[in-house]
């Protein structure tokens, strides 16, 4: 502390000398520089001895501003945490490059060219939306650049059109049937209302759930709502008294809570079942259900520490962040392996990305990709919210 005080004083004094045009200024500057070198030296000494070898840039494509900023900022922060953790553990120098897409495929497409043009970038986390993935896919595959999304769940994305695309979350094709089966079986619902939010996320999951429900013989009605709808009371009024479950497909958990509260206050018996977008502390009406592609990460020993450090640094988080941590990890590890093998270019990283195997990831299981880029052994978990709003694993 004192040294820094001296430094500040010294700087000021030196500045005063120079400013007043004092002839002896040079000596004074020297002395101040000498004083200044002390902390610099100590800072250098505190750094680890062995020199870091591996590094490179990883781009994060996410809606960092605009209407979906709450998702994008959480994703960005998890990516930052992952890189910091990894660098600290491996003495590497990986860096993040922000790429704000505002969840708009057009901007994502433009940004993809920027990322492709920056040769320092060896891998991409994101983009967040499925339509963005389709928009950037051609550019990235042409550049041989691997990209790992943590939230694009449209099953069509891994049909072979995007050979460099990977994702760490299961698709709607997994979530829909799982949720529908639970609603039909465990809950035993006879009638379900599916609220489809008109986003690429909401549309996909709503369709998959509705199809699976129909297949399971559960009567269901899909109500589509625009993304910018503010009040859901009028939608809830449409929910009949005989409806058992209202399945919601919001990206923002607060809206699921809004629907749940509205159901409670209008005295309807229906409970809300939220898709993975609702998995967040904001959704907490007791008795509701929510599905997630991972067991609650706060309950996983491997993840508890990450969750804690994230909360300390950036505050609360929802469902879109933790997979980004894993997605970033997968690229970092691939890069590290490529670096060790002496092929730390895009091709090397992409090749290694295919061999991803994160044992005991913070999402609960091991993470590895299949040939199409989907995560292996994808499974959905279902939680019931207790009276305090905490999720309890029920399947």
């Amino acid at each position, binding site marked *: 502390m004192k040294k820094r005080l001296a430094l500040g004083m010294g700087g000021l004094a030196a500045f005063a000398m120079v400013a007043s045009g004092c002839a002896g200024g040079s000596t004074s500057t020297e002395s101040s520089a000498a004083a200044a070198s002390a902390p610099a030296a100590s800072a250098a000494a505190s750094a680890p001895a062995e020199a870091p070898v591996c590094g490179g840039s990883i781009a994060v494509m996410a809606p960092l501003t605009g209407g979906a900023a709450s998702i994008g900022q959480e994703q960005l922060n998890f990516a930052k945490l992952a890189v910091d953790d990894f660098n600290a553990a491996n003495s590497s120098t990986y860096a993040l490059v922000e790429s704000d897409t505002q969840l708009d495929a057009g901007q994502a497409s433009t940004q993809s060219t920027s990322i492709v043009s920056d040769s320092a970038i060896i891998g991409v986390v994101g983009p967040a939306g499925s339509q963005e993935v389709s928009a950037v896919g051609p550019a990235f595959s042409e550049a041989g650049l691997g990209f790992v999304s943590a939230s694009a769940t449209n099953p069509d994305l891994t049909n072979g059109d995007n050979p460099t695309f990977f994702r760490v979350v299961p698709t709607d094709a997994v979530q829909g049937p799982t949720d529908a089966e639970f609603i039909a079986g465990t809950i035993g619902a006879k009638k379900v209302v599916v609220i489809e939010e008109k986003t690429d996320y909401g549309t996909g999951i709503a369709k998959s759930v509705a199809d699976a429900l129909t297949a399971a013989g559960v009567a269901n009605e899909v*109500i589509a709502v625009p993304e910018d709808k503010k009040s859901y009371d009028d939608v809830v*009024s449409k929910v009949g008294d005989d409806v058992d479950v209202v399945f919601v497909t919001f990206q923002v958990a607060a809206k699921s809570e809004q629907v749940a*509260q509205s159901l409670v206050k209008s005295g309807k018996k229906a409970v809300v079942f939220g898709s993975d977008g609702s998995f967040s502390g904001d959704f907490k009406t007791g008795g509701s259900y929510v599905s997630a592609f991972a067991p609650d990460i706060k309950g996983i020993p491997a993840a508890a520490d990450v969750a804690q450090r994230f909360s300390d640094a950036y505050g609360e988080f929802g469902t879109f962040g933790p997979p980004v941590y894993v997605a970033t990890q997968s690229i970092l590890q691939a890069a590290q392996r490529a670096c060790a093998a002496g092929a730390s270019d895009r091709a090397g990283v992409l090749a290694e990305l295919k061999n991803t195997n994160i044992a005991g990831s913070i999402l609960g299981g091991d993470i590895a990709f299949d040939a199409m880029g989907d995560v292996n052994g994808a499974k959905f978990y279902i939680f019931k919210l207790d009276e305090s709003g905490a999720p309890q694993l029920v399947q």
Partner: protein
Amino acid sequence: MEYFGEQLVNGVVMGGVYALIALGYTLIYGVLQFLNLAHGELYMMGAFFGFFTMTALGGPSASAVPVAVMIGIMFIVAMGGGALLGVAVERFAYRPLRNSSRLAPLISALGVSLFLQNAALLLFGARVRLYDTGQFIDLRSGISIGRIRIDPTEMMVVIGALLLMAGLWLMVNRTRLGRAMRAVAVDQDAAVMNGIDVDRTVVWTFAIASGLAGAAGVMSGLLLYPVDQYMGVFAGLKGFSAAVLGGIGSIPGAMLGGFLLGITEALVTGYLNPTYADFIAFLILILVLLIRPRGILGRPAIAKV
């Protein structure tokens, strides 16, 4: 019929919020003939101010003061904060442009919107906030007629909106400040020549309009609308539509427009398809404009040849 009543209540409640936002647009347009497109952002800021006041007072569950007092303070802070911000926006973004073309303040307003949204993102973080009204108000209480229920927050919104409108109407039509506002609206130069301080009148106009936006922000928070940086964009559009529908510049018009828009939205949602609610609302708006170019209660333009 009960279902219709239910949807009507939903519509009126939504309409109350729209109407409050619309009042701000209408007031500023009435005085300056200028669309304050940043109005929605003041509403957003009001919602945040209310939220942070609530948190500072001990949050939704463990309030340090009685609930009524807490809500009162939330409103005061949000309205005061909104008013201050509104006055600042007027001073720095609009006043330099008062005598320039009509488009310049429009662009300036868009700049202000962009700035405020991102300042909120920077300062408050990206997380979506919820007021969690259920924690301190029993939403299951309130009036119910058959299946039609009106919970306390809904009552508060509707009554509050009506009271604020009545107050505003009285203020504009019965007070010295109101007269000054109307005089400035008709002819700024003539107003100055009668000793009216135009700048001060405009400042008050912005303060009142922005205060109303702040109140609307808290109300929508209490109604459990998610609070985020971009909530003002669409709400602003709705409030603005309401003002235009009712006849921009007219205070009862703004109220009428707000309620009409809310009811339309609820009925279209209730009987047709929610995704088309906005489509139909906009369609009605365009039709009304084509039939009555100045809105339902708007004064026809005086043609000068």
